[in-house]
């Protein structure tokens, strides 16, 4: 009886739960009924062939993980030949995540993907591993505006901009994405982090630095989702540390229209469908007819309170 449908950045989804880019691939089919997901989101692809980063590529931390996978990519032809036909077998909308070293490269790649079976483009303008020392388009409002504008000119597909949490100005960057023509912002990618092995004195990641994800970052990204929800009128897709139905509700209350689940799937492969079931049960228990009503429904968040911070 609960209506789980949401409308996000130009796409109508059966429910608000989808995978986070880079944490989802065909292997999950063995354990999860993929047709139940709100959308599919591919691992980020690039035009260039890329090998990804040296190993070790992951490390455990308290309540989270660091990864420095990088963006290994087999290029567009391999995507068209293998990945796209594979995902086309389902009716679930397919969101293709893309990246490029230049705004021009982003635009060209988006243009090349305006194909049947591609439902939306997620522009990963935030991956902390790509630019040296963690810089990315989405660390700067002007660069964000520029790349999103060019993407907007290059494709008629719904366009989502995936932001980085490695900034002190997330609201300004979300506004730049909106101004550039994005249909939604995905908040956020991983938080740049690091770990050192005290036995070997070496970094725990082959790449020294990597992205932190998982429950540890949930309070940080949730805050950013809330800031973005207040700053823009396009939908915000929350992504960071979501592992339970309550986490998804928390994100929606803070302003998310839909959520992406990444790291949780590694620990619990059925995490996404468990969350969908749990959302349904939760709405039922609370007498909520349309899940979309949860978006931004947090109470007691007036500016008086925020200003109260200073007193």
């Amino acid at each position, binding site marked *: 009886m609960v209506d789980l449908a949401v409308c996000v950045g130009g796409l109508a989804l059966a429910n608000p739960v989808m995978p986070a880019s880079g*944490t989802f691939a065909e292997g*999950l089919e063995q354990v999860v009924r993929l047709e139940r997901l709100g959308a599919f989101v591919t691992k980020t692809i690039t035009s260039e062939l890329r090998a990804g980063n040296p190993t*070790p590529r992951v490390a*455990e931390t308290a309540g989270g993980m660091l990864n420095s996978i990088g963006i*290994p990519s087999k290029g567009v032809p391999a995507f068209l030949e293998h990945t796209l036909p594979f995902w086309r077998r389902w009716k679930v909308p397919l969101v293709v995540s893309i990246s490029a070293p230049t705004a021009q490269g982003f635009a060209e790649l988006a243009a090349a993907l305006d194909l049947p079976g591609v439902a939306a483009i997620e522009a990963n303008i935030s991956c902390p591993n790509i630019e040296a020392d963690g810089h990315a388009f989405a660390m700067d409002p002007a660069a964000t505006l520029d790349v999103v504008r060019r993407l907007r000119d290059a494709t008629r597909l719904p366009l989502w901009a995936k932001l980085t949490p490695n900034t002190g100005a997330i609201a300004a960057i979300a506004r730049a994405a909106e101004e550039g023509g994005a249909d939604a912002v995905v908040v956020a990618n991983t938080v740049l982090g690091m770990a050192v092995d005290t036995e070997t004195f070496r970094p725990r990641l082959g790449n020294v630095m990597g992205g932190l994800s998982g429950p540890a970052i949930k309070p940080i990204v949730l805050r950013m989702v809330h800031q973005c929800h207040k700053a823009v009128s396009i939908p915000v897709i929350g992504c960071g540390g979501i592992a339970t139905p309550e986490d998804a509700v928390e994100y929606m209350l803070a302003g998310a229209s839909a959520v992406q689940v990444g790291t949780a799937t590694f620990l619990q*492969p059925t995490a996404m469908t468990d969350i969908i079931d749990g959302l349904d049960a939760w709405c039922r228990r609370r007498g909520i007819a349309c899940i979309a009503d949860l978006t931004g429904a947090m109470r007691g968040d007036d500016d008086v309170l925020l200003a109260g911070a200073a007193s």
Partner: protein
Amino acid sequence: MPALAAAAEPAAAADLLAPVIANDWVNDEYKHLVLEAGAPACLAGAGQFFHLLCPATGADQPFFRRPMSTYRADPEAGRVEFLYKVTGRGTRGLATLRPGDRLRMLGPLGVGFSLDAAWRNIVVLGRGVGLATLAPLAAMAARQGVGVTAILSARSLAHVMSVSAFNEMGARTIVVTDTDGSSAPCRVETLLRGLIAAGRADAFFTCGSNRLLELMQRLGAEHGIPGQVALEQQMACGLGMCFCCVRPFREGGREVHKRVCWDGPVFPIEEAMGW
């Protein structure tokens, strides 16, 4: 890759909560875990693995799951067994399991060992925890009527595990140890050359030691003997999704990255690169 081509379609995996039947010490470092598990878990092929959600204890809170090779999968009894070394926080947590507790485990996963119909006699060479991985291969060979010579290498006699398991499966078992020097690569090489000469080495299988891998690669190349190796790498998803478990492989003269959890953990021996 004729060997791999012969592999059966991997059974679909499942994530199940398996009751613990036993979890006993085998020696001062290893425990033997027996779980009740229906299909598809108990249909796991030799070399396939499970991804275990090791319980958190006070000080040890493992974040990822831990990969563990099937030591034994018994479809009749509906059981799956593991032989594991207690090393870090995940396996320490595993060691706390008591009969009646439940363990969440995902599997069977990955590409396991496969036997070419043309092979009559194979040589299995393992060390340490690698023996756990090779044990079900000996069982599979026994079922298919393939003769097995198993060379089990360990620090000392007290540390050789699974001798009886290999014996029961009808394998000719040779134990080599560091204590008496019989495990030195040059001495193992002599053993292997003997087996090749005796026509008992249609294929090589190994796991658990870089030096033994390199030895088998060299002799295999020299005598045109195919082979397979089971490899390890730290894993997050275990399902081929995260690309964290890649290792470099030689393929057609180029170095390529493959995922241990998805493309392996068993690989053609000539592709593997030492570590």
